[in-house]
């Protein structure tokens, strides 16, 4: 899986590069409009992480260029421009997703995974993690080849944990992934715990070892050998 990161902020670019490489993707990164155009002209990527404000040009123009050339690379825009018009424009131009800065890397990862799944879903819609098999198309979960019924939120939670396997996810990141940006959580995310507890119970009941680790109640991690 090849990913191109187009982001002019040095540190952010490097962090994303490290993170996505760690998640098993083959990553390349560029910092400017010109370099980005060069890259996309000669290579094909499964997903392009695209910043809008770049030295030398706009990320939206890169998007236009891609669509003009009928390239099929998936595109996720990452922008500080939360303005609704920008979001609509980006999606209308053919971007697959739009993530507003600042975002959680785990959120970026799960969105990229979703885009890649959509792009080549022939036989790829099932994700396996240990004993757990998640069919993202059919929204079904098999544990030890045994069907497990999950609520919609539990399904989303499991998918989020699996895509970010072996990483600690803060309750903050989980809450924002499941409920979005515009809600606030007065109880310090206590109720997330009940979702984790239920999910864990259902997986264990199907005969799989308890793979969801709590990190002192501050975060969670799906641990696979």
């Amino acid at each position, binding site marked *: 899986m090849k990913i191109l990161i187009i982001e002019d902020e040095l540190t*952010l670019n490097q962090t994303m590069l490290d993170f996505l490489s760690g998640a098993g993707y083959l990553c390349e990164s560029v910092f400017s409009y010109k370099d980005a155009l060069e890259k996309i002209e000669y290579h094909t990527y499964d997903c392009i992480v695209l910043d809008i404000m770049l030295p030398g040009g706009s990320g939206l123009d890169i998007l236009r260029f891609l669509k003009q050339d009928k390239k099929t690379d998936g595109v996720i825009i990452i922008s500080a421009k939360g303005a609704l018009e920008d979001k609509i424009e980006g999606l209308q131009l053919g971007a697959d997703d739009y993530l507003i800065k600042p975002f959680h890397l785990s959120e970026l990862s799960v969105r990229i995974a979703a885009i890649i799944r959509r792009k080549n879903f022939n036989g790829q819609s099932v994700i396996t993690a240990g004993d757990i098999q998640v069919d993202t198309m059919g929204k079904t979960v098999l544990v030890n080849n045994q069907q497990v019924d999950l609520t919609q939120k539990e399904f989303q939670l499991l998918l989020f944990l699996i895509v970010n396997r072996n990483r600690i996810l803060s309750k903050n990141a989980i809450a924002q992934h499941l409920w979005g940006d515009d809600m606030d*959580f007065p109880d310090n995310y206590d109720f997330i715990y009940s979702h984790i507890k239920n999910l864990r119970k259902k997986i264990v009941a199907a005969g799989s070892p308890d793979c969801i680790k709590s990190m002192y109640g501050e975060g969670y991690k799906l641990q696979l050998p």
Partner: protein
Amino acid sequence: MKLFTRYNRVNITATIITFLVGSIGFYFVMDYVLTRQLDRGLRVEQQEIIDFVKEHNQLPEVQTTRHQWIDIVPAADPIPHPKPNTTEAFNKIENEREPIRQLVFTVNAGGKSYQVSVNQSKTETEDLLQLIILVTVLMIALILLSNYLINRKLVTRLWAPFYRTIDSIRDLQLSVKKPLQLPAESIEEINLLNASVNKMTARIHQDYQALRTFTENASHEMQTPLAVIRSKIESLLQDTEGKEKTIQQLLTIEDATLKLSRLHQSLLLLTKLENRQFQLSEAVNLTEIIESKLAERSELIAARKLVLSVTMKEVVLSFHRHLAEIMVNNLLNNMIRYTPVHGTVSITLTNEVLSIKNYAANGALNTDKIFQRFYKEEQSAESTGLGLAIIKEICVLAGFTITYQYAFHEHDFTIHFKPSNAQTI
């Protein structure tokens, strides 16, 4: 008062006064001229009588006509300087008293002294004067009427470009990306106005765009470092196996960046609201929005064991979808945050109002301050202190009013929509 009305008022008053003064003057001039003409006739008559007496030494036969008659009576004293004067006398032919011009003088005929009075009726003169006055008054009326009609028609047409300009200015929307382009007009003043307005709006537009770009860039420049901090925290988090304190500290930093980012987005939104960067012409189904936002929070409401009662009619407002969502979000966030566990909450939506009531543990809020920016009743880590300020600004923009009341241990936030704005499906 319209400029035209005021102008017309002054104009008409001036016209009437001018005509009145003019007619009075005209009357006196005419009266003077006509009287002089009568007097000349009287003098001619006098001369004829004196000449006759001189020639024949006897009195002439007097002829009486409808307008002139001569009375001769024996007189004692001669009149030294006879002058015509106006008086009244009985006209035997007309059989009525009428105003006359009279010249009284004395003559000597056959050794006897006679007083001769030549009388000329003034009725004709009076009639003529009356006619003149009538014509004058009619003229005034006619001129006023035609003046009024012409002015009305002409002025309406003359002012039409002015009203077109005013309409364009009124409809000017800064968020539309084109500056005002008023056409050149044939009238110099209007042309000047249009050109100045064009120039002014072009300048305003430029400033506005600059401000907009600035706020957007400022947002970008702020959010990017925040994104760096956040991503670094996430990376660090992965190396904290077995270090509880470090995790907690990292997450505290993460919370702070989250809050900073939200704060910044809220301030940006407030600026945009103040700049009126939103067009409120979308048909927005408020009922649907509230329902979906409530559904998003169903777990949260369940976790806090809130007792919720919802009464909603189908309400569609001419509004802005995104703003409506923000408004509902903020209201619901507050409602959930400030209601104690097991508290009661009620939401009522009608065509006129949206009312959200929730049980309050600690009494009334400070009505004067709750809508102020950064005002907090209690220090809360989650709250930015901008939620209600944003709701208030959205209401101001949309022409709604928001009120707060406290009664029976309940906070009651009610938004009153414009009566004309609400419609039922």
